[in-house]
C-alpha cells in the first residue's frame, strides 16, 4: 500500500482536484478525439441509430493527402515562423524598456496590455479598416500599396495575420518578461558596467541569459496559441481566403467537423496538430534549455 500511495498519501488528496480537472477537461476529450479519428464519425442525436464505422487510418490518409488540409498546415508553419520570433524579440525588448525608469511607464504598460484583453472580434474590425484596399495603411503607402491588397494577397495574408496576432498578444508576453526581469540580479548589471560593457552588451550578456526560462515559456505558449489560430483567418480574411492561403488547421477542423459534418476527419486533423505542436515544442525546449 505504501509503495502504491507513496510516503505522503495526503498528497494524493491535494492533487486529486487537479487530476480530476485534467482528466475531465483534457484527457477524456483527447481520448474521444483519438477514437473519433479512427471512425467515420459525425455528431448524432442521442439514441439515433446511425452508422459510424471504423475506418482505420483513412482519416489520417486524408489529412496527409487533401490539398486544403496540407495548405492549412503550411500556412500555420509560415505563421509560426513569423509570429514566434517576432513575439520573443518585441516582448523582450519592450519589457526591458518598460522595466527601465522611463516617463509614463505605467501608461505604456497598460497600453501594451489593452489589445490583449480586448475581444478579438472588435480588434479585427479595426484591422479590417486599416488593411483593406481603401484602408489607412494603403492611403499612407500610396503607390507603394501592394496589389492585390493585404487581405486578398495570397503572399501577404498570413504575414499580416502573424503581425496582428503578435501585436494583440504582446501585452501578455511583456508581462511574463517583466516578471522574469525582476529576478535578474542587479549586481550582474553593475559588474558589467564596471567591466565597461555598453547597455546593448549588458542586455545581450546579462538580460537575455537571465530571462532564458521565461523565453522558453514565451516560445512554448506562442507556439501553442499560434498553432490554434482560428478567429483571425475566420474574420480577417473571410474564412481563410483568398483561395485558402490563410486557412489554419483549426479553421479547417471547424469547416470539416462542424459545417460539413466530418467530425472524424476533423479529429484526425486535431490529433496531427497536437502531435506536431508537441514535436515543435520539444525541439524548442531542447534548443532553448541546453547549455
Amino acid at each position, binding site marked *: 500500500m505504501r*509503495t*502504491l500511495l507513496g510516503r505522503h498519501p495526503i498528497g494524493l488528496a491535494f492533487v486529486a482536484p487537479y487530476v480530476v480537472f485534467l*482528466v475531465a477537461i483534457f*484527457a*477524456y476529450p483527447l*481520448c*474521444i478525439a*483519438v*477514437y473519433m479519428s479512427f*471512425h467515420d464519425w*459525425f*455528431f*448524432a*442525436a*442521442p*439514441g*439515433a*441509430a*446511425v452508422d*459510424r464505422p471504423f475506418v482505420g487510418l483513412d482519416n489520417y490518409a486524408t489529412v496527409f493527402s487533401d490539398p*486544403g488540409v496540407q495548405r492549412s498546415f503550411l500556412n500555420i508553419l509560415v505563421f509560426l515562423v513569423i509570429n514566434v520570433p517576432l513575439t520573443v524579440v518585441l516582448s523582450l525588448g519592450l519589457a526591458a524598456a518598460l522595466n527601465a525608469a522611463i516617463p509614463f511607464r505605467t501608461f505604456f504598460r497598460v497600453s501594451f496590455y489593452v489589445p490583449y484583453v480586448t475581444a478579438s472580434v472588435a480588434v479585427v*474590425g479595426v484591422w*479590417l*479598416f486599416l488593411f*483593406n*484596399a481603401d484602408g489607412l495603411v494603403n492611403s499612407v503607402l500610396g503607390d507603394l500599396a501592394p496589389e*492585390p*491588397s493585404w*487581405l*486578398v494577397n*495570397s503572399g501577404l495574408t498570413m504575414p499580416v495575420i502573424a503581425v496582428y496576432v503578435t501585436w494583440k498578444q504582446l501585452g501578455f508576453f511583456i508581462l511574463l518578461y517583466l516578471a522574469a526581469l525582476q529576478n535578474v540580479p542587479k549586481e550582474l548589471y553593475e559588474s558589467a558596467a564596471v567591466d565597461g560593457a555598453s547597455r546593448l552588451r549588458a542586455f545581450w550578456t546579462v538580460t537575455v541569459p537571465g530571462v532564458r526560462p521565461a523565453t522558453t515559456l514565451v516560445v512554448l505558449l506562442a507556439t501553442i496559441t499560434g498553432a490554434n489560430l482560428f478567429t483571425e483567418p475566420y474574420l480577417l480574411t*473571410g*474564412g*481563410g*481566403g*483568398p*483561395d*485558402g492561403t490563410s*486557412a489554419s488547421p483549426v479553421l479547417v477542423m471547424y*469547416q*470539416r467537423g*462542424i*459545417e*460539413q*459534418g*466530418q467530425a472524424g476527419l476533423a479529429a484526425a486533423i486535431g490529433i496531427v496538430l497536437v502531435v506536431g505542436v508537441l514535436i515543435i515544442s520539444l525541439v524548442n525546449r531542447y534548443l532553448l534549455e541546453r547549455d
Partner: protein
Amino acid sequence: MKRTVIALFLGTALTLTACNVDGGGGGGDAGAAAGKRGPITIWYSNNTEEVAWGKSVVTAWNDAHPDEKVTAQEIPAGKSSEETIGAAIAAGNAPCLVLNTSPAAVPQFQKQGGLVPLDDFADARSYVEERTGEQAKQYESPDGKLYQLPWKSNPVVIFYNKQAFAKAGIDAEHPPLATYEEFLATARQVVSGGGAQYAILPAPTSEFFQSWFDFYPLFAAETGGRQLVEDGRATFAGDEGKKVAAFWQTMYGEKLAGQEKYNGDAFADGKAAMAIVGPWAIPVYKDKVEWGSVPVPTSNGTPANEIHTFSDAKNIAMYSACENRATAWELMKFATSEEQDGKLLEATGQMPMRTDLEGAYPDYFGKNPAYTMFADMSSRTVEVPNVANSIAIWQKFRDAYSSSVIFGRSEPDTALTDAATDVDKLAAGS
C-alpha cells in the same frame, strides 16, 4: 515503472470509456410520438419582422390551444443558425420546430438522426403538395421522404442604383442588363462613368454559401432551372456553367467586381452600383437608394417571365427531440395557413411558398407593386440540391470557383471540371 503501469492502466480505462461514446440505440417509437399532443418549444429567426410575426402566430395558437402551449424563442446565437441547430441535435435539446431551417443543412441534420420525416403524418404529403405544388419536389430527400416543409423563398434578382446609372449616362429606367454582353457593357460604363467604384460586389469570400449569391442565380437562369447536382452528378461543369464562370471571370478580371469583401453595405454606401438581393432588400434600401430591379442576366437574354433564379428559401423542420409531434405538425400547418402566410408576407415581404401567390394575395401585391416581380419569380426558383454531403459539395465548389474565377489562379474550365469529379464522389456519399 509501477507509476508507468498505473498511468497506462488509467489511459486504457479512459480509452475504453471513450469507446462507449458510440453507444447508440433505438430512435424511440416514432408512431406513438407522431400522435402525442402537449406543450412544445419552437425557434424562429432573429430578424425583427419575423420575430414580430412569430410572436403573433404563437399568441394566436396559444389562445386557441390552451392545452398545447407553444413556447417560442429566437434561435440562440452562434456562428450560424445551422451550427447552433446541429449542436442542439447532438445535445438532444433541439426544439420541436425551427422556423428557419436552411435546406442546405437538411441532409446533414437528417444524417444526424435529428429530423422527423413529415411522412409520419398521414396528411403531410398532400398538404405540402397542395400548398407548394410542383416545387415541393425539390425538397424531397434522397430516401424519398420529406424532412422539411417548404415555407418561404427570397428569389434573388439584380437591384441597381438609378442615380449611379444616370450619372454614368445609362438609361436608369430601362438599363441594358438582360444578356451577359449588355451587362458587361453597362458594368463598364457605370464604372468608367463614375457611377460607382464597382459595378457589383458580391462577397468574394470563401464561405460555402457565398456561391448562392453570385454563381448560382445566374446558373439557374442560364440552365432554365437546373440544380448544382442532379441525379447524383455535378451539373456545373457543362457549357452553361462555364459560360456563367466566364462571365464572372470577366467581371473580376476587369475590376468591375471587387476581390475584397466590403465592410459594410456596398450597395447602400454607393460602393457598388448593383447588388444581387431578395425581396428583403425593398424595406432595407427604401430610404437609402433609388433603386430599380431586373432579373439576373443570361447569355442570350431569356425573357424575364421565363428566368429562373436561386430561391434563398428557409423552411420549417421538425426535430427528433420533439415529444409532442402531433401538436408540432398541427402548428406547422397553422403557421403556413393562407391566413398566416398572408401575415408573413405583410410583415416581412418574403414569399410564402404556395402556388399562385399573386392570386392568393391580390390586395397586397396591388398595394406593393415592387414585390410583384418577386412573386412571379417565386414560381421559378431553384433550390440547393438535397443530397448527401451538401455543405461539403458547396465548399468544394466555392473553393474551385474562388481560386479560378475570383482570383484567377487557375483556368475556370479546368477548375470546375476537377471540382465536378470531387462533387460526384461527395454526392455519392463518399
